[in-house]
């Protein structure tokens, strides 16, 4: 976070934070790579924002150390860390014009007037605020305020940009637009971005890696497809999107990966049954399941009855119940759904072996 213009590499070791008896963060260790776009994802109260505030220097951790480019910055106050930060609600200076807001961090750093003018001008151009230089924040739309906040946080070329739910106040269309813009800014500046959100689709769409938090613990870190397709535990699996869970018996390793019994039918998984033996849960995302008249020999499949359908335009969401009463949801082409419902009785749910994964039975 010190040399301007150079993306920072951050290392958190054993970070913990207690507020009285409330444990906001517990033993968190995480490496944030130079120039990466890391998203901290979790429900409210999961500790993601607390961690962001610790990175910014606004909150002191009760335990652990924080390093930036190898330098211990745990006790360094926020104003000396100078990470760029975009707050929820933007926190613009209401009494300053757009220009003055963006110039603020440069003035603090005692840059020359000519330098400030040039860099502010460039930044205003880059975030598309030309013509709004003299306006006050209150005269701008939400999206424009967002751009000012981004420009102000990036103009002094911080090593890391911290973003606390920056899009939560925007409507859906604008949100998509700002997400694309932020991705572009990340590519252009090459700065390390740490982004907090509770919106899993936003996290998956934007990040190079996602860190999932719950109850003050970091549960899993990985690339979006990694955490989505191979979650370590049930919370991560459920938080990242809809998922079907089927009870599995007699799980054991096989040459291929692992096998088990699902409603008395042998099924196979590509993943290894390392931690899981005997009873387990087989988890499959709805979009990876399909419906057919009969499962081919050796194919993964169970029998189920369609109970309800919801037309979604491009596809239909079909709710089914298996013979042993498990509820399953699939997303299928509209005509397939119609056919399944009209049959009234049993259809086959099938899925490729590499799309199912094992979760420990019960618990998290």
């Amino acid at each position, binding site marked *: 976070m010190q040399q301007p213009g150079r993306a920072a590499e951050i290392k958190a070791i054993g970070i913990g934070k207690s507020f009285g008896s409330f444990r906001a963060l517990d033993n968190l260790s995480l490496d944030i790579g130079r120039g990466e776009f890391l998203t901290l994802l979790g429900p409210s109260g999961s500790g993601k924002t607390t961690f962001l505030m610790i990175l910014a*220097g606004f909150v002191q951790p009760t335990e652990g150390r924080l390093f930036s480019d190898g330098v211990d910055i745990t006790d360094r106050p926020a*104003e000396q860390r100078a990470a760029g930060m975009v*707050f929820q609600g933007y926190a613009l*200076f209401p009494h300053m014009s757009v220009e003055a807001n963006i110039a603020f961090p440069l003035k603090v750093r005692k840059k020359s007037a000519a330098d400030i003018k040039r860099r502010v001008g460039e930044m205003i151009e880059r975030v598309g605020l030309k013509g709004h230089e003299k306006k006050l924040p209150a005269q701008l739309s939400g999206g424009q305020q967002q751009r000012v906040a981004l420009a102000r946080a990036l103009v002094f070329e911080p090593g890391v940009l911290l973003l606390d739910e920056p899009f939560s106040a925007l409507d859906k269309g604008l949100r998509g637009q700002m997400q694309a813009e932020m991705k572009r800014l990340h590519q252009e500046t090459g700065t390390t971005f740490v982004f907090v959100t509770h919106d899993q689709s936003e996290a998956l769409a934007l990040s190079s890696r996602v860190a999932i938090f719950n109850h003050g613990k970091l549960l899993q870190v990985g690339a979006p497809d990694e955490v989505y397709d191979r979650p370590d535990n049930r919370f991560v699996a459920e938080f990242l999107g809809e998922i079907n869970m089927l009870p599995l018996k007699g799980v054991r390793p096989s040459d291929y990966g692992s096998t088990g019994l699902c409603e008395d039918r042998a099924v196979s998984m590509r993943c290894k049954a390392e931690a899981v033996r005997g009873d387990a849960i087989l988890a499959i995302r709805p979009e990876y399941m399909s419906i057919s008249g009969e499962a081919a020999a050796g194919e993964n499949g169970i029998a189920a009855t369609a109970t309800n359908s919801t037309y979604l335009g491009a596809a239909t969401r079909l709710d089914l119940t298996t013979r042993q009463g498990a509820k399953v949801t699939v997303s299928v082409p509209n005509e397939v759904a119609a056919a399944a419902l009209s049959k009234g009785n049993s259809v086959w749910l099938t899925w490729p072996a590499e799309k199912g994964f094992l979760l420990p039975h019960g618990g998290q």
Partner: protein
Amino acid sequence: MRSYLSDRMGAALLMAPLLLFLVLAYAWPFLGVVKWSFTLPSPGLGQYEALLTDDLVQSVFIRTLRIAAIVTVVSVAAAYAITVVWVRGTPAQRLIAEFCILVPFWISVLTRAFGWVALLSNRGLINTWLQAIGFISEPLALVRNEFGVIVGMTHFLIPFAVFPLASAMRSLDDRVLLAARGLGSSRMRTFWTVFVPMTRSGIIGAAMIVFVFSLGFFVTPAILGGGRSVMIAELIYLRIFQSPDWGLGAAISVVLVLFVGALMALLFRYVRPNQLI
């Protein structure tokens, strides 16, 4: 939807006693004062002409404006410091600040004025101590002059400046201050370039209230000025009760009321009434 109308009527009914009281006890008698200013001792604009030419009246006006201006600056500055502690301090600091703000409210203005006389007079606490430690040989003239008046008025008016300031400071978004620090601004710089400008409406409100109150101050200047530092209200009193010069006293009153009214109108262009409490 039940009753926008009847709610409004309810509100009007609740306000009626106050309005009636103001009309009967204030507006109506004041019209009488206005009448005196044009009729006593003889009908015409003579009293207003006298206002413009009378050296004593002019010097009292100027002194009043000067004292009010000084008291305003000192009170608002002191109140700002107290309010920062009251609104943003630790719980213990808040308690102490609250005590300092509220206790003066419970003590009458008269008591406080005499309290200051006891502290500031030639044989008062401050002069006695300063002489005892050998810091001065002759007592300092701390009272029966403008200095004493300013001290007493400032002390009285600080709490009135605190409320508009507190209201402005409370409505300030903490994240904006965090943002400033996150952008590299020291606490000092953040205070001066972000915190103070963002409480501008509170500063304007506090200054206007103190200034307007100062213009009409009577008891404190009468006691602490000792007749040597006469302000407008005391001059009006002297003209009406000690010299039979009702016409001139009335004319000064009218000018004072118009001036204060103009200031209030200006004040409410900048701040809403609910920001003042």
